[in-house]
């Protein structure tokens, strides 16, 4: 039986580290059968058994699932394999990418290509994935400047490019509103609120309570969809941006949370919540899911009037709220910035982990994914955009399917500001800290000034621990 063979194996295949010997002695000298390798070791070569012919097989991991998502991924892999190239791709659906990818990298067995969904910046900054600039420079298919401004910048760390936008890229910010609710409240949709001051007036007009004081319709939830950022790893921090603040300084690797503008943003966030009542807002949020994907989410089901969200919303709403009409315009900004229109095109990088053997083959697949053939398969199944400038043409026939999508496409060219998502090497920590800060403020645990200062200190301290060499 295999069991026994395996067991024999345990005792013969030893490569211990010093601390282990120590621990084995310390724990009573029990026979140590567990072998181990240096955690960050390069990939082992033994599993690169070359197929009989000269085709190279590469492993591609993705986290997206669902019937349409799987169809898109399967479709892309099939289209690639049908091209008769010397490279064949084997696709793997990995529903929990963080767990598996970390283990695989530690074990020296990462995939050749990965996409979605990890804390990308954490991979770039820790040398877990390869710089791709040389490949891009040599490529006849993709160039650095072929992508929408800001997009490839969000995949760069200290001057090198670690990812190529392949799947699901697009404009992240539009203020969408429910036309019927706006009309009922007697508001003029042709004069959308442009500042937080005006936005608050709309919020007050649109929010409705029943006789017992329970909220029935919320005007605007300052933490829904891209306003709250959710777990997103490729969207800038909305609230700071509306005040014109970039919370990350890539030159000095420091944070800008201790800024008047961030404090003002927190104050505004609290103001919107207080009008509804913090407990009511929390209950509302936990009763209805956010974003636009589900018909029982608050915005599609018609109990929330306004939402800041991305280009995928028109497509999702056509499924989740086919009976309702929605409009879209620029997201509001701070009073002092009245007139500014901003946009950000975020996307998921395709990356190649360090230590991968078939780098050229892996890059060939990445190239393929950025191009029309793959992008059409993806758009048809999921409605996702890609990253190349040329596809941001609102008049292309395939984009006419969803009302409002053209606004998002046009906004990329019309915006006065096009922001790149900051590449923060402690991204996961900062995202969680941001949610905590928002909650501490709206629950009244901290004054905005205090919360901003604490956030600045916590993030700075974390940087100091994780990347002492980057701080002066």
């Amino acid at each position, binding site marked *: 039986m*295999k*069991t026994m063979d*395996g*067991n024999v*194996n*345990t005792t013969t*295949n030893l*490569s211990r580290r010093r601390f282990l010997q120590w621990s084995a002695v310390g724990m009573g000298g029990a026979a140590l059968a*567990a*072998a*181990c*390798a240096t*955690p960050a070791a390069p990939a*082992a070569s*033994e599993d690169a058994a070359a197929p009989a012919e000269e085709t190279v097989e590469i*492993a591609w991991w993705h986290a*997206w*699932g*669902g*019937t*349409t*998502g*799987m169809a898109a991924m399967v479709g892309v892999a099939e289209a690639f394999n049908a091209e008769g190239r010397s490279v064949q791709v*084997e*696709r*793997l*659906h*990995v*529903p*929990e990418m963080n*767990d*598996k990818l*970390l*283990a*695989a990298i*530690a*074990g*020296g*067995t990462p*995939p050749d290509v990965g996409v979605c969904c990890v804390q990308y910046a954490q991979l770039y900054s820790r040398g877990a994935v390869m710089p791709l600039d040389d490949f891009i420079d040599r490529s006849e298919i993709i160039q650095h400047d072929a992508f929408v401004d800001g997009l490839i910048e969000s995949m760069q760390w200290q001057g090198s490019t670690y990812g190529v936008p392949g799947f699901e890229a697009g404009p992240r910010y539009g203020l969408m509103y429910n036309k019927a609710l706006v009309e009922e409240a007697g508001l003029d949709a042709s004069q959308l609120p442009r500042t937080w001051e005006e936005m608050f007036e709309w919020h007050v007009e649109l929010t409705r309570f029943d006789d017992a004081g329970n909220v029935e319709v919320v005007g605007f939830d300052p933490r829904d969809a891209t306003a709250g950022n959710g777990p997103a790893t490729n969207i800038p921090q909305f609230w700071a941006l509306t005040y014109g603040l970039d919370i990350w300084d890539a030159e000095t690797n420091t944070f800008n949370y201790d800024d008047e503008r961030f404090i003002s943003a927190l104050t505004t966030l609290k103001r919107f919540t207080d009008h509804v009542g913090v407990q009511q807002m929390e209950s509302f949020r936990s009763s209805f899911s956010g974003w*636009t*994907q*589900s*018909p*029982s989410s608050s915005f599609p*089901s018609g109990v929330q009037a306004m939402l800041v969200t991305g280009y*995928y919303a028109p497509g*999702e709403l056509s*499924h*989740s709220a086919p009976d309702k009409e929605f409009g879209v315009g620029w997201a509001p900004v701070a009073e002092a910035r009245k007139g500014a229109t901003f946009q950000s095109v975020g996307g998921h990088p395709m990356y190649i982990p360090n230590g991968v053997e078939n780098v050229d083959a892996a890059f060939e697949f990445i190239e393929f994914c950025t191009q029309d053939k793959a992008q059409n398969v993806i758009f048809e199944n*999921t409605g996702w955009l890609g990253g190349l400038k040329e596809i941001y043409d609102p008049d292309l026939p395939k984009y006419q399917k969803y009302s409002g999508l053209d606004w998002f496409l046009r906004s990329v060219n019309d915006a006065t500001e096009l922001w790149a998502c900051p590449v923060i090497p402690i991204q996961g920590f900062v995202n969680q800290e941001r949610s905590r800060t928002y909650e501490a403020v709206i629950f009244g645990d901290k004054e905005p000034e205090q919360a901003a200062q604490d956030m600045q200190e916590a993030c700075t301290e974390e940087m100091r621990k994780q990347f002492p060499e980057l701080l002066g």
Partner: protein
Amino acid sequence: MQRAEAKPSRSSWELSHSQSMLFKTVQRTLFYVLMVGLALIFAGPLLWMLSTSLKTDPQVYHVPPIWIPNPVRLVNYPEALSSRPFGAYTFNTVRYALTAVAGALISNTLVAYGFSRIRWPGRDLFFIICLSTMMIPFQVRMIPLYITFKNLDWLNSYLPLVVPTFFAVNAYYTFLLRQFFLTIPSELSDAARVDGCAELGILLRIILPLAKPALAVIGLLQFMFAWDNYIGPLIYLNTESLYPIALGLQQFRTMFQEALMWPYMMAASTAAIAPVIIIFFFVQRTFVEGISITGLKG
């Protein structure tokens, strides 16, 4: 209800025969009302799964929720199950689960016997060490464990999931079996020992027959664990055709809206738990009140 009101007062101790019959009937009725009420609460999620698995898409999201689907969309089942290779996933899962059950039963029987029916110096210390392996969260053991299996060259197979079960690494089962072994009167094994029976003989001939309910529980729990195990296969397997059902079900999960996501997911999930329910049904049959230990020959 009228009969219930005729309940005799508690103070009158002298109940006529018919009154006492009536009392019993009322008591039994109340008991069943209670049980059915509780059962409805406990069956809630399964009913919701069943209901969702038969819905059309708009009905899934109806507010307030609809419990009885109309129309009933039976075709969700074949559609969902054929959308991914569930045949292969089921084969992988059954093979894994059955091997793991065998492993857990064999190894834990031996180890639990050593921890309960024999007195030896250091037993309690070893037992505490065994228990303590449950107290370190898997999240921090996962990566070193992965490296272990990588060095054994066991990745992309079920070996990392199956082999350890033959070595009683899950202290939960060892502990459970130990507790049951300890309830068996020591006179039984002492008598056998006097008769010259070796320890293994005592285990096989005396202890195991008496521990059937406990063995059934361990078999069931290990089966369920393997059936649902998701993080292990996720980490160790790199080929989709090797995936178990639990990972197959994950493929329905998505962050964006799409038609029939919930109905498909719930149809596949309902189909996936059906075998476990059937196994449970058989396992619970070993729990028949009134096995009399003292009545057995020692």
